[in-house]
């Protein structure tokens, strides 16, 4: 199994074998965390530019740590999204970054498809760290990794994703990844936050968590944003909480070994209550740790040369 891609733009176009290779590679990367010297020289001399057009701490730090543990040099560039619409074109920006010698550009952008716009135009490897409502492949990979680590498999599991599916790149990447590896996916949320055509992606849609909770092996709770109220998609955060907020009582009928996940940052008391987030079934902190390992694996696999004549 080889990994011959230049970029990681999403999981929609990856094969199950490619996803599995990333997950297996991440296992070895995670082993490094137990060493006293947590850094390996693999990407010495390589430069990773982390270009974020949206504020984010978790993902940015995770990528930065991943790159540093592989000995790459990292540069952070943050640009506010307001400057995107009118300022320098993103194509010019990344061409400049490429000219400065970036081997990788890790990009987060509020507009779906922004990484695709630049991927054909430059030779640096592009890693999508979240584009609009489209994909967030490394988050889904770390979710898959975390599920596999906890459950030993993905195939055959029933995974529920609760919340704002329409606006969620995490949900989309998770749907592709989970389906490719053989899981069953259930989307749970209000109809205003689930795309009309969601079921054409091969998932099942529920408007009530109670109707499906007892079947689920894993529940992935998405962050709900206040703007949804302004867009008339929700009457209020409190009403959302009263119907979809994941609380202990709502989990009464769930399996004892239900795995509880959240991509963070959490709104405690809105989409999830503290007793649930802090329960022994929650693997939310382990997800964060796994994120570094998965991102190291992605950097490692994309960095390889394309010539296999070896001595």
């Amino acid at each position, binding site marked *: 199994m080889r990994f011959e891609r230049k970029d990681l733009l999403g999981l929609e176009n990856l094969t199950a074998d490619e996803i599995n290779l990333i997950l297996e590679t991440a296992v070895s990367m995670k082993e490094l965390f137990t060493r006293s010297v947590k850094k*390996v*020289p*693999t990407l010495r001399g*390589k430069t990773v530019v982390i270009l974020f057009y949206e504020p984010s701490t978790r993902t940015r730090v995770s990528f930065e740590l991943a790159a540093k543990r592989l000995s790459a040099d990292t540069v952070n560039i943050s640009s506010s999204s307001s400057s995107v619409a009118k300022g320098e074109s993103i194509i010019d920006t990344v061409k400049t970054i490429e000219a400065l010698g970036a081997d990788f550009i890790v990009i987060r952008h509020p507009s779906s498809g922004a990484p695709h716009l630049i991927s054909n135009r430059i030779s640096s490897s592009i890693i999508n760290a979240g584009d609009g409502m489209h994909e967030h492949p490394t988050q889904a990979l770390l979710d898959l990794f975390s599920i596999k680590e906890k459950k030993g498999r993905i195939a055959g599991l029933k995974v529920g994703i609760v919340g704002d599916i329409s606006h969620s790149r995490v949900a989309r990447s998770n749907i592709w990844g989970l389906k490719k590896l053989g899981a069953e996916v259930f989307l749970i949320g209000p109809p205003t936050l689930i795309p009309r055509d969601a079921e054409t992606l091969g998932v099942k849609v529920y408007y009530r968590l109670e109707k499906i909770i007892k079947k689920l092996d894993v529940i992935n709770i998405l962050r709900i944003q206040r703007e949804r109220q302004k867009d008339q998609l929700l009457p209020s955060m409190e009403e959302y909480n009263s119907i979809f907020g994941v609380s202990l009582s709502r989990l009464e009928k769930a399996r004892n070994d239900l795995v509880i996940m959240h991509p963070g940052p959490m709104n405690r008391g809105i989409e999830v209550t503290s007793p649930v987030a802090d329960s022994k079934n929650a693997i939310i902190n382990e997800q964060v740790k796994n994120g570094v390992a998965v991102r190291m694996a992605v950097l490692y696999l994309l*960095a390889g*040369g394309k*010539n296999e004549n070896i*001595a």
Partner: protein
Amino acid sequence: MERIMTKNEMVRVLKRLTAEIMEDTSGGKNICLIGIRSMGVHLAEMLKNEIRKSEKKAPPVGILDVSLYRDDFSRRLPRRIKETVIDFDIEGKDVVLVDDVIWTGRTIRAALDELIDFGRPNRVWLCVLIDRGGRELPVQPDFIGKKIEAEKNQWIEVKIEKGKAEVFLTTEGRK
């Protein structure tokens, strides 16, 4: 494809290597074995069994995957990497690195770098089954199973599986 070592030969070679190691490490009192993935791992296990037979006591065995320390990384497709497993402290130990074939010496260079990240051994020895010459770095094994002269386009393959243990020399490039 030419067979250059049979199972019987390999068993004899391993016995001799065991003896040499024991002699040079004062009976192996302070040693540990570390096999380099992938074939070095099998050989380290076989050596351990030999040592257990002769000394009634087996040294700890670790596994190194040197993929992340290689210097040819960006020139080839990344290989499937596996974990490095060293669940004992190598600080102050006499470490015997074990690999199947030594050629350019680059793998051993990577292995030494990785090993050092785990601690400061008292001494590091190198044991290989086959030395095929062709060194590109000043790295020399301390214990050698067999020396052969191989051409650049030749490939040495050590096969150890399900009771089989043989070494072959092939002349077409590896796929």
